[in-house]
Every structure is written in structure tokens, then in C-alpha cells.
């Protein structure tokens, strides 16, 4: 735990458990919300970055609940995102229902499918579970290619809210922001409550948790269902944001990116998935932006430029895991501790 500011006394359990327990945090969070609300004015045409980060951060929050807090490794997270996206497409085009119904349906459908996929986790665990989820990922990809027409083929209508069409980046941003914040706060609340504690007990030693009265069937399937549901909502938002979906958006590479996000951000951390999603997406876009200018500087480098992203990404992941296994959230915590204690080392 970190250092408490002087004079800040807790007089009730509710105060002690609060998400934002000091005045500084509350001010900081209010400032962050204000900044997010005002972001479209500042970012201009770079707003798409924030939209993308928001969508993937939501998905990453789900994976952090499943993998970071409940300890169930999943290499098939983007399959759930795909299911959410296609469910949303089906509901809006074939059934003609409004966007909000599609969003809710995507969340509910992936919740159910996630619980089903989570059932084997009672019997297999660790590496074996990781492999089973990977198999699920490939089979989902195959099913999508063979039923929905494969690569880049499915056009999704623009989201409409009470008859109002959401077409521009800014409009979509104000649709996404409440869902993003609500999703993040919901996860943070879940983690500090009974569910979160039970999930962490399952992660640390599942049989011991069972002895202490945690129902393994209930909590393991719940972890999968929640994680999948977040991914499904993210998938639905992605479908209506990108407007075209195909199997190539939801490959195993995307699943690995999700894992990278939560590991880079910090595994069992509330802020981790948001930080990690921001980092991974900014890195991707940054490399895409940097490589052309690099190629003009060094023409011999041209052919190696395309896979540069993979190499840098892999090297960063390895470096981060060797030097700071706690991820960005841990770096921030260390920085905060350093500032708290400055100018003394201890």
C-alpha cells in the first residue's frame, strides 16, 4: 500500500473501501473525465485513436477480469468479440432492431456463449485451458469464414439512437464514452466486492478456494461469461464503428494483442487494461506512421519495413516482461511512491 496523505482519516468501512478514497483521487478522476469529455475539441482528426482505444479497452477489461483476476488464460478473446460483432450485425440488419437492442443482445449472447465455453475450465486448467481456448478461436474463425462470407464482406449499418444516425467520429465518441466509463467502473466495483475476491481466490488456488466456500462452477463460468460479455459489447461497438466486419478483424493475432494489452498494462489492475490498450494501439499507429518516413531515409530498409511492427512489438513485450512484470500500472505505482517520498529514498 502506498503512503496516505496526513490528516486523511477513515471513519467508516464505506470510506475505506471507496474506489476514489482521497480528495486528490476524486479531483484527478473528475479532471480525467472532463478531459475525456473535451477530447474531441482538442484531438480533431486524431479522435479515431481515442475511439479505437475505447473499444479495445472495453474488450481488454473483460480479459483482465478473466485472466488477470480469475487466472483463466484465454487465447480466444477476439472470438468472443467476433461473436458480439456478428450478433449485432444480425440483430440490426436481419431483425431490423435499433442499435441499443443489438448492443444488449451482443452482450447477452456472448455472456451465454462465454459461460458455455468456460465449462471445460472446471476439468482442464493452465496450459491445457489456454490451448482449448485457442482451438475455440480457430474454430470460430472457420465458422465465420464459412457462414458469413469470409474476408471483409459484411457491411454493418451506422448505429442509430432513437432515430438519430451516428455517422461522424465525434458522434460515435460520445456514444462510446459513457459505455467505456460505465464498463470500467463496473469492473472496478466488481473487483473490490465479493465476486472479485472470490475470483482472486480461484486464481491463487482453485481447490483452496473451493474449501473456503467459493463455488468453482459458478465463479469460473461467471468469469468466462463476464469476460466474453465485455468482448461482445466491444465487438458490437467495433462493428458499428468500422461499418465493415470480416474474419480478418478477429484473428488469433487480435487475441494475442488483447493478452499483450493486459500484460503491458498490468495483469490484476483496474487501470491496467485501459493503459495497455492505449499503449498497444498508439504503438501500432505510431509504427504505421513512422515506417514510411524511415523508408524514405533508408531506402534499403523498404522490404523489412512491413514486419517492423511485429519485431518492435515482440521486443517491447519481452523487455517489459523481463524488467517490469507488473506492467504500466506497476510503473505508475512506483512513480507515485517515488513522488510521495521525494526527496527521501524511503
Amino acid at each position, binding site marked *: 500500500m502506498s503512503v496516505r496523505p496526513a490528516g486523511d482519516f477513515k471513519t467508516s468501512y464505506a470510506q475505506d473501501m471507496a474506489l476514489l478514497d482521497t480528495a486528490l483521487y476524486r479531483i484527478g478522476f473528475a479532471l480525467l473525465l472532463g478531459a475525456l469529455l473535451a477530447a474531441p475539441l482538442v484531438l480533431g482528426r486524431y479522435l479515431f485513436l481515442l475511439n479505437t482505444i475505447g473499444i479495445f479497452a472495453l474488450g481488454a477489461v473483460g480479459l483482465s477480469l478473466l485472466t488477470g483476476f480469475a487466472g483463466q488464460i484465454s487465447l480466444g478473446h477476439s472470438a468472443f468479440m467476433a461473436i458480439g460483432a456478428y450478433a449485432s450485425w444480425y440483430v440490426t440488419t436481419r431483425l431490423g432492431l435499433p442499435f441499443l437492442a443489438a448492443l444488449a443482445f451482443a452482450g447477452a449472447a456472448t455472456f451465454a456463449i462465454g459461460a458455455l465455453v468456460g465449462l471445460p475450465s472446471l476439468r482442464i486448467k493452465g496450459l491445457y485451458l489456454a490451448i482449448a481456448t485457442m*482451438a475455440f478461436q480457430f474454430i470460430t474463425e472457420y465458422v465465420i469464414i464459412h457462414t458469413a462470407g469470409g474476408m471483409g464482406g459484411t457491411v454493418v449499418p451506422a448505429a442509430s439512437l432513437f432515430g438519430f444516425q451516428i455517422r461522424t467520429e465525434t458522434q460515435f465518441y460520445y456514444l462510446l464514452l459513457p459505455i467505456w466509463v460505465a464498463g470500467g467502473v463496473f469492473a472496478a466495483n466488481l473487483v473490490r466486492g465479493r465476486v472479485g475476491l472470490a475470483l482472486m481466490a480461484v486464481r491463487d488456488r482453485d481447490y483452496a478456494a473451493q474449501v473456503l466456500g467459493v463455488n468453482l462452477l459458478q465463479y469460473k463460468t461467471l468469469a468466462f461469461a463476464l469476460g466474453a460479455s465485455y468482448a461482445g459489447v466491444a465487438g458490437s461497438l467495433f462493428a458499428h464503428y468500422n461499418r465493415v466486419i470480416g474474419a480478418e478483424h478477429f484473428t488469433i493475432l487480435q487475441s494475442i494483442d488483447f493478452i499483450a494489452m493486459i500484460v503491458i498494462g498490468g495483469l490484476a489492475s483496474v487501470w491496467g487494461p485501459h493503459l495497455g490498450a492505449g499503449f498497444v494501439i498508439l504503438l501500432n499507429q505510431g509504427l504505421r506512421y513512422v515506417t514510411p518516413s524511415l523508408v524514405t531515409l533508408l531506402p534499403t530498409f523498404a522490404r523489412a519495413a512491413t514486419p517492423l511492427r511485429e519485431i518492435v512489438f515482440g*521486443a517491447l*513485450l519481452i523487455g517489459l*516482461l523481463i524488467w517490469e512484470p507488473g506492467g504500466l500500472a506497476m510503473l505508475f505505482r512506483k512513480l507515485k511512491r517515488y513522488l510521495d517520498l521525494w526527496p527521501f529514498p524511503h
Partner: protein
Amino acid sequence: MTLHFVLEGALVGVAVGSIYALIALGFALLYKSTKILNLAHGEMVLFGGYLAIALTRSLDLPVWMAFALAVAGTLAAAAALGFVVERGIMRPLYGQSLLSVIIVTLALGYIIRGLMVGLWGGDTRQFPPVVPTGVVRFGDLIVPRVGIYSAAVALALLVGFSLFFRYSLVGIAMRAAANEQLTASTLGVSLKRVFAYAWAFAAIAASFGGILLGLWLGVNFALDYVGLKALAAVILGGLDSIPGAILGGFLIGMLENILGAYIDANVTAFGVSLHGFKEITPFVVILLVLLIKPYGLFGTEHIERL
């Protein structure tokens, strides 16, 4: 499903399966001695295929001599890769959580594939004609000639590896460490050295698999997919069983070429033809095996106690 179809599928399956078995052997060996699930194994296959083709082409010698030198060079490079990975990446992570190690191997795979594709491009590349092309007929069964050769080489290597583990000092030390790490290290087996050798052997087995597949089908950026098929073979045989991995390789090869090919061509579900099913057969096998018999055919059952 005619008998002819089954027999031909079985023959091709055994030929491909022997390559899968070789790759799976490296996988299981590494898992058994270090408890690391190496998801970069497919990229090591890619490494072998790409490097051998590039070396064969760049050497200005008669084709067979260039090929022999290229194979030797590739295997040396693979061993070096194994040592470097163990020393530079895996040793600092010793004792870290399962997830960190899995992700590090994935990241390693990104780097290897990125380097290979960056150096030599992602298109399919072929060896210069080193082995005779054409087909061999057994009665009315047709098998590509390359398949026979690679099956023979893979089988010879499998025998060679098992002799090595049975009789050489390093091999015995590795088996001892795989069996019981703590006891082996108290009896004077250097675990660091065993881990390094395990990585080198895994890389060599994978690279050899890459060379054989390259001779048969050529290599492109998607070759790392084969690593996942080897994973299926290992799961089927039991993660920590080396004979299991070899048998699993053959079984996956045959399943893919008999059942997969049959469903591919003939079965429709809900009015949609299941074209391309052959490619996901290994994953269906993985799922079924994990659900029915989670520790595979010969894997040690993990009994937990509090």
C-alpha cells in the same frame, strides 16, 4: 469413403505425420525438461525452412552440395538460436508465472517471423530441385516421391534422437532432469545446461521439420501454422510424453488426410459445404481430446492436493 481413399490418405498421412512427429518431438522435449509451452515453435519451423532455402540458393556450388551445406548451416543456426533464446530471454524469466512465459514465447515468435519475412519476403519460396519430383505408385495408390523421402529422413531422425536420449551422457542428464528436477540437480546435473540443450534440440527438430516441409510444399509466411498442428499432436499424445508426441504426430497426419479430406470434399452441414475443414481438423481433435481425456493418451495425470 472407399477403401482406396482411406489407404491413400493413410499413406500420405504417415508421410506428413512423420514430419509432424519430428516437430512435435521438439515441442514435447522442451515442455518435458523446462515446463515451458513454446508457442514460438511454429516460427522455429519457419526459421528452418526460410534459412535453408536462402542458404541453398546463395551458395554457388552443385545443388546437392549447396543443399547439404545449407542443412548443416541451418541446424547450426537453429542450435545457436536455441542457446541465445534460453540465455537471453528465458533465464531471466525463470520462476515467473505461466502467463508471462507463454506471452514471451509468443513475442519471440513475432520477432522470428518478422525477421524472416522482413529478410526474404512472405511469398512462397521453393528449394532448387534437390530431390527428384514425381510420384511413387504402390499398386494403384499414389504418393508424392518427396513424401517418401521426408518420411524416411524423419523416421531416421526420430530413431537417432531416441538413441541419443538413451545412450549419450547429455541425453541421460536431460531425461533425469525431466523426470525430477530437484533430484537430478542434487546429483550433479546442471539444470542451466539441460535447459539450454533442450532449447537447442527443440529448435533443431523444428528447423529440420521446416526443411522437410519446405522440400515438399515450399515455405511461406504461414508455415508457422504447422507448429500449431504439432501442438495438437502433443496434446493428443500427452504434453509430457515423448513417445506420445511421436504417435500423436502420425495420428494427426492420418486424421487430417483421411477424415479431414473426406469431410472437406463430401460433407455439407446446414446446406453449407465444409470446404477447408482439413485445416481445422487438428483443433477439433484438440478440443475433443481435452474434453474426454485431458492428459492425452500417455501424459502423466496431474494429481493436486492442498
